[in-house]
């Protein structure tokens, strides 16, 4: 059995508010294997976003361990972790999180800048990614000039920029109408089927839950 890409080992996340402690994750253990399509389901406040942040190495656990490609992330320097995150994980957010003062092309090129890719290569890849998502006519538009669905597709192109092994999506259809949302989900499914990407999605969408080969239910900070 190959090593999981991301491995959570008895992960706790505890927030401290003055004297009150709030445990959002309570001992979660989870393996994300190569090629999996994982859906995380749970009511709001169940800790699913916190879990996703752990999987995306955006946050460090209070207790327990997170391994990215076999490496304990709490032992990595912040810079090394940022570098590894940029290379191995692509993010898709509910609010798209595009940089408003950059155009579509520049937004997609951004993660490649941080990996030190040469400009010609960056531009070529960004253009082909945008074209493959049907955005060839939107390359020089700013996010504010685009519809929600278009913005989310740019965000997906950005997530794919460094050809990461894993895509982490936090309610990617939450801010979209159902038609557009369905298209976004189809793109994610396509990435899984044809590009062999590992995908982790937090969603309420029943269709995507049906497609998934691994559904993780979380409640009160625990996987059930």
């Amino acid at each position, binding site marked *: 059995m190959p090593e999981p890409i991301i491995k959570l080992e008895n992960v706790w996340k505890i927030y401290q508010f003055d004297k009150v402690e709030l445990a959002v994750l309570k001992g979660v253990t989870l393996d994300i294997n190569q090629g999996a399509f994982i859906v995380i389901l749970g009511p709001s406040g169940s800790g699913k976003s916190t879990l996703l*942040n752990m999987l995306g190495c955006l946050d460090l656990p209070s207790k327990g361990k997170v391994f990215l490609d076999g490496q304990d992330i709490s032992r990595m320097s912040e810079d090394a972790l940022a570098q590894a995150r940029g290379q191995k994980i692509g993010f898709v957010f509910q609010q798209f999180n595009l940089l408003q*003062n950059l155009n579509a092309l520049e937004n997609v090129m951004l993660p490649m800048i941080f990996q030190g890719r040469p400009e010609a290569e960056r531009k070529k890849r960004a253009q082909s990614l945008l074209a493959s998502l049907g955005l060839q006519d939107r390359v020089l538009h700013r996010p504010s000039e685009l519809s929600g669905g278009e913005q989310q597709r740019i965000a997906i192109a950005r997530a794919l920029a460094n050809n990461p092994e894993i895509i982490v999506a936090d309610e990617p259809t939450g801010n979209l109408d159902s038609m557009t949302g369905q298209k976004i989900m189809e793109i994610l499914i396509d990435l899984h089927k044809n590009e062999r990407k590992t995908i982790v999605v937090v969603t309420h969408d029943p269709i995507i839950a049906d497609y998934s080969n691994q559904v993780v239910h979380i409640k009160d900070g625990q996987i059930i």
Partner: protein
Amino acid sequence: MLQEYFKIAVKNLRTRQLRSWLTILGIVIGVFLIMSLLSLSQGLKNTVLQQLKAVGTDIVMIMPGSVSDIMTTLIGSVKLSEEDLNIIRKTPGVKIVIPSVYKGEIVKYQNESKTVILNGLDIRNALDVYIDDMGMKINTGGWAVPGKREVMVGSLVPTEIFPGMKINTLINIKGKQFEIVGILKSMGSKQDDSMLGMDLEIYRSVTGERQGAPQAVAKIAAGYSVEQVAKSIKANLENQAKRRAGRQGENSYSVFTSEAMSGIVGGIMGIIQVVVFAFGSIAVAVGGIGIMNTMYTSVRERTREIGILKAVGAKNSTIVLIFLIESGIIGLIGGLGGMIPGLGLAKLIQAFGQVHPIFYIEASVTPGIIIFGLLFSFGVGCLSGFFPARSAAKLKPVEALRRYE
């Protein structure tokens, strides 16, 4: 990669144009102040030191009053008496003593009357000292003959004060006719080149200043130590003063070798420059605080953006760099924007001074001062941006992303 970060930084600044420009304005004002004052004070220093350098090394200057009281001496309320001059003459090692005498008088040439500084020159005894040690050279014509009403004019007199003035023509001073016999070469300073030189005896009779001098110059004979003779001149003058103390009160004297004079003047000018720089720096510091304020605001506003950058792989050092480039650009543009009008103003003051002989000042605009100004403002920008940049870099990606606008 630096080029990419630069592009991102410029985009960020342009997104917040009004605020960026206002912040830049804060720096512009400070740098404007520093550059204009620094350029003028440096110019002043250069001019004065250059003049002093023209003076020979075997020359000693004697002034009444102590150095601590130098303003009194310069204003000229205290003078060397004829007795003082004799004491200097009698000091062993002194070859010749030349009183420096000058006075502003109204001079009439053709139909124009202007105030010109008259300078009494001891041509009979000390012509070679004027030529060799003080850099007075004839351009056209010749030297005035002692005892005759003849004058030599500085190089600026026929060009700026009385345009078209020629030798062998007449001027009128206090109702008496003088013949212009020579035009001097430029001595490198506005004051010296604007004066009118005449024989000492004639000067004394025309101005009515028959005795003493505000200051004197002594040339030291070969084989004597200039330093040593300067000391004995001072001692002799002060002993004499002590003897008279009962009736007149004690006098003190300042005796400088030309080297010591350069040192003192250089020192004073240095202090002026430090003070000027210190005041200007306060203005720049205020501008720097403005940058810091803007950058902190920017960090707060862009918290989410910083989170995104980190999520897609930006290192802490990258975030710091982007913010530093932004504040550095603000500083640099502010520096450039302050320097151009600052040095412009200095040049304008210089041009103004050329029209008014009394108010002569040179603006020094050197590559050094320009590079210094730009580096200084860029440095202030980076320094002011450093703490905001660091606070931006310290944000945890997950917390930065969680903040919604």
